[in-house]
């Protein structure tokens, strides 16, 4: 007769799902809490709750939808306790964004694929700024110091880089006929 899995084995199995889902959860949260600093706070709240509720997780179901359900509660909590975001908690905006994201899911997936090619085309200086800000969590002030520019100039640069990435992605999707020609 097989032995029942030990609680430690259950925890380790859960932990694997937990680790695999972390980045996907952050991507999900950023849609509603765009500032990375805030989103990471919400992610941490979500991960702590997920861990606390691990005994409730049904291993026969997908982990990410369950985790995103908890993240949605945490996003709403964040909105409610931040006066500047309170309006977002008062209506169905999250559902509205969800629906649009769901309707665009195929296109968004293609955009993610094109993003890698477009990143490879960025000039080295722009790539370094992007890596510092997004990958290495450098503050804009730190980047400004390192690059010998003002923080405002770095913010503008980030905005231009995002614009150029969006343009690159959309050019690529138009070339492939996914998006109509302008």
């Amino acid at each position, binding site marked *: 007769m097989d032995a029942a899995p030990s609680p430690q084995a259950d925890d380790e199995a859960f932990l694997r799902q937990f680790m695999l889902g972390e980045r996907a959860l952050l991507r999900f949260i950023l849609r509603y809490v765009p500032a990375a600093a805030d989103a990471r706070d919400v992610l941490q709240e979500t991960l702590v709750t997920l861990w606390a509720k691990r005994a409730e997780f049904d291993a026969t179901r997908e982990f990410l939808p369950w985790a995103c359900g908890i993240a949605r509660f945490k996003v709403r909590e964040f909105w409610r306790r931040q*006066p500047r975001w309170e309006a977002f908690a008062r209506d169905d905006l999250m559902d509205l964004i969800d629906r649009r994201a769901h309707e665009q899911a195929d296109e968004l997936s293609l955009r993610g694929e094109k993003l890698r090619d477009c990143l490879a085309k960025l000039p080295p200086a722009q790539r370094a700024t*992007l890596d510092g800000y997004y990958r290495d969590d450098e503050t804009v002030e730190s980047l400004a110091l390192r690059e010998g520019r003002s923080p405002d100039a770095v913010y503008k640069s980030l905005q231009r880089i995002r614009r150029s990435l969006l343009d690159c992605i959309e050019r690529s999707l138009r070339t492939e006929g996914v998006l109509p020609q302008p």
Partner: protein
Amino acid sequence: MTDDDEDLFARVCDGRATAAELADFHRRLRTDAAALDAWVRYADLHAELAAGPALGAARAPGERLALPPPAAPRPASTWRQWAPQAAAGLCLGLLTATMVWAVVSPVAPVPRTVLAEDFESPAAVPASRVPLGPGLWRGDAAEVVGAQHGLAPARGAKMLRFLRADAEVAAKPAGGHIAVVYRLIDLRPYRADFADGEGVLEVSASFNALEFPDAESYGCAISLYALEAESVPERVGRLGSALADEALAMARSSRTKLDRDPASWQRLTTELRLPPQAEFVAVRLHINQSFESGDNPVFKGSYADDLRVSLSRRAPLP
């Protein structure tokens, strides 16, 4: 996407949007289908850059699946390193949720979780008025309790219950009493994050009260005092006025009236832009009862829980 949309989206993503801009952002998403579509695409790009695989090439495939060894030394953390460390600690039963938060803080740039206090430890009890020092709760008589009289903690299994108004009895308002507790926080390890005057300390806490008679009312508030080391008072006792005199900067939340429903916690948040020379911050949690209850006022059912202190570079509330 219009240029206006793009400017707004960029400010929202970079955490620079003002309250008015966030209100405009909310309105546009609600009323303009094209803006909503543009946001979904823009946010998706932002999220891919922040958390997707596109910029994550430095991490070997599958590395995130590896369970950390139980005795692995705690690395200098960035937020991305939090989960394996915390999870390992959780598996081993070595870390409490509060400690998990603490792991985030040592060297991560911003935001930093400076303190997460759930009052789970009996050491959280403000036992006396002296000494006032980092890591200690001081102030009026209080105790750490579990759920009681139908009121459950806002987070975890314990919460702080205010018992009496002692320390500031001489400064009590007319027709009422104030019970306060203080926590002094050493900001010196974080000074690099606000040396340019752009650091913002955000403090939030939950307050609640047992059901009380119509003749009574209770309020709560959070005050923050940024201090130089030499200005930190050695003892509690009319500390509120002493701190207000000595503080480099201070902030106080609007006093919130507590409702009569023990099931609902009031959440207060206060922000303080830190002066570059600040070395400590004193956090003051305050419950007031606006009715007389004698010279030795007793607080029958007033509670605080779930204190969060974080340091960021976001713009303060307007």
